[in-house]
């Protein structure tokens, strides 16, 4: 499959009063045309920072310390986004790579009408006349399933519900048919029916344009629906990556086990939900071994001492835990996780 993006050994830091936050620590992955990569992981694990680095939209106190972000243009030219000048980055942002941000209120301008906000990028990147841009904007609003699109053009963000704002943000991102669409929790503010429609919409557009999608979400149900591959992040690192089937049915990293065990289902109604004990590590001073070891019931001594490499489980499936070392003792994943593998193909939720 044709590569669109290669991220190699990315390190991102933030300077703060308390010191240097190591938000992304040596992350590598590839993204191919037409595929959907879901990124899951704990709050604060670096999902947004990783994707904002790709867009070169880090906060002022943020730095790409090390690593490459290679973008492959359609004509075969490759550029390293990490080293691109701002002027060139402007050409990529929106037109080649577009992003739907996590917080819809901060990505919409509260003092500007919805119509104007959708028309602006269209006019900038697609050289359309004002009239055509207006027509396109109305189409986009109805495409993301908002009623009375012509009237909506004149409204302001605060007159929209949370979910409607988010759909507007999606419309803005789709305005220029990007090659890579990054969606940072695009559906968390949406109810399940609209969520399903938006996901179908993203899939449909992807079919048409063969765009690649990076989809950040907390909802493992959505991941199961949309993802071809899944990357699991913890403390600024990818701790497991594989096909959707690899990660959901035969997960290998103890953090992934914990994640899959915390979802409510019919087996645990009325019981306390499983929650991973402890708090995430301090990224001002990350632990030297597997950052998850402190919170894991499965940690080996070595996990505290030395960062485990990405072990290859299959051609598609990798995970960073010493449990995968040939000499490691054999451990049994939690029962809920074992059941997943056994029940493959059968839902565990009514």
């Amino acid at each position, binding site marked *: 499959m044709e590569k669109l993006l290669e991220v190699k050994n990315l390190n991102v830091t933030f300077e703060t009063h308390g010191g240097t936050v190591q938000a992304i620590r040596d992350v590598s992955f590839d993204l191919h045309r037409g595929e959907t990569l879901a990124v899951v*992981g*704990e709050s604060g694990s670096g999902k947004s920072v990783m994707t904002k680095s790709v867009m070169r939209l880090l906060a002022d106190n943020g730095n790409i310390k090390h690593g490459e972000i290679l973008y492959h243009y359609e004509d075969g030219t490759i550029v390293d986004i990490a080293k691109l000048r701002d002027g060139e980055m402007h050409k990529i942002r929106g037109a080649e790579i577009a992003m739907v941000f996590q917080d819809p209120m901060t990505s919409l301008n509260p003092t500007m009408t919805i119509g104007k906000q959708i028309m602006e990028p269209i006019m900038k990147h697609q050289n359309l006349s004002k009239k055509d841009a207006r027509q396109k904007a109305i189409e986009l609003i109805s495409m993301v399933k908002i009623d009375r699109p012509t009237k909506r053009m004149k409204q302001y963000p605060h007159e929209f519900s949370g*979910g409607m704002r988010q759909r507007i943000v999606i419309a803005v991102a789709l305005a220029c048919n990007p090659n890579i669409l990054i969606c940072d929790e695009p559906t968390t503010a*949406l109810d399940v029916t609209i969520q399903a429609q938006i996901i179908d919409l993203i899939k449909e557009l992807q079919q048409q344009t063969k765009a690649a999608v990076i989809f950040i979400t907390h*909802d*493992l149900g959505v991941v199961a629906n949309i993802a071809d591959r899944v990357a699991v992040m913890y403390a600024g690192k990818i701790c497991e990556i594989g096909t959707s089937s690899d990660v959901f049915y035969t997960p290998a990293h103890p953090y992934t086990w914990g994640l899959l065990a915390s979802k409510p*289902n019919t087996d645990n109604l009325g019981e306390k939900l499983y929650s991973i004990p402890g708090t995430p590590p301090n990224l001002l001073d990350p632990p030297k071994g597997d950052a998850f070891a402190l919170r894991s019931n499965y940690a080996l001594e070595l996990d505290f001492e030395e960062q485990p490499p990405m072990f290859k489980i299959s051609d598609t499936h990798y995970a960073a835990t010493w449990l995968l070392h040939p000499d490691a003792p054999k451990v049994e994943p939690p029962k809920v996780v074992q059941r997943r593998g056994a029940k*493959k193909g059968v839902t565990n939720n009514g």
Partner: protein
Amino acid sequence: MAKNENKELILDVRNLKQYFKIKGGVIVKAVDDISFKIYKGETFGLVGESGSGKSTTGRSIIKLYEPTGGEVYYKGERITVGQHSIDEWKEQIKILKKELKLGKTENAEIIAKLEERIKTASNDNIVKPDLRQSMQMIFQDPMASLNPRMRVIDIIAEGLDVHHLFETEEERKEKVMKLLDLVGLSEDHAYRYPHEFSGGQRQRIGIARALITNPDFIIADEPISALDVSIQAQVVNLLNDLKADFGLTYLFIAHDLSMVHYISDRIAVMHLGRIVELGTSEDINYHPIHPYTRSLLSAIPQPDPDYEHSRKRIDYNKAEVDYYAGTWTEVTPGHFVLGTAEEISKWTSK
């Protein structure tokens, strides 16, 4: 529900209406004549599609808006009377006065009663400080609701400051630190600013802020949708523990039905400003009646790729159901649905 009869009523919402006038004279009926009761110690889930009026309901109850119509009682006291009712009474008085002039002397007494009613209504509509302390809201959009120029410690302590709930600076700090710990943040987070946090971390700041005044009733507007699964489990366990330990009551607004199912005692399903179905968590999840509820349930994503790829969603055609023709009908004890007799017999026979 028979069980509720001897339970203490905490919130009683009667015929609440919240309309907004938008540009061009259009009126948005965000909440249109909804009624429900919440009992002490229960978690009442409110679900429904984006834009159906869930947040508006919460905001009207906590008096961020002046409701268009209806009444809200909190712990037996009326806290809200819709402007419509007051206007209606004023109209009645006008007519009664005319008649009085024409010799209908018995009207004098009725007029006095209505005038008294208007006076108490205006009185009730004033927000009393103890209500602010006892009823709190966790907002949907964490970034928009946190003041970017305030440190986390001061954001969380705001309720303490406003209601003078501490003696010494030391005590104030201690209370904040305790809550930070409770919501899974650490002490060194107290002196940072909101932009330095991830989306999920910000949401936990919002939760700590709502909890600090020791409220009895919390309106939680999508409190967990921005959190990752493992923290969701922590927060849900936390909300449940607080409920058990302090007898807290929740109005829990969310769209993740599996989580709402898990956490709620009773659930109301909203659509287009109306409540279309209300019942116990079991009623709604296992014996749904309204086609909208069924469609919503069929769209819940499950963390299982094989299931997701073969899932069939039930589409809902709102044109087939006229909400204004239907009546609020108790189908089985405590299980209500909005529909005509004909519709309900059709839905229940399926």
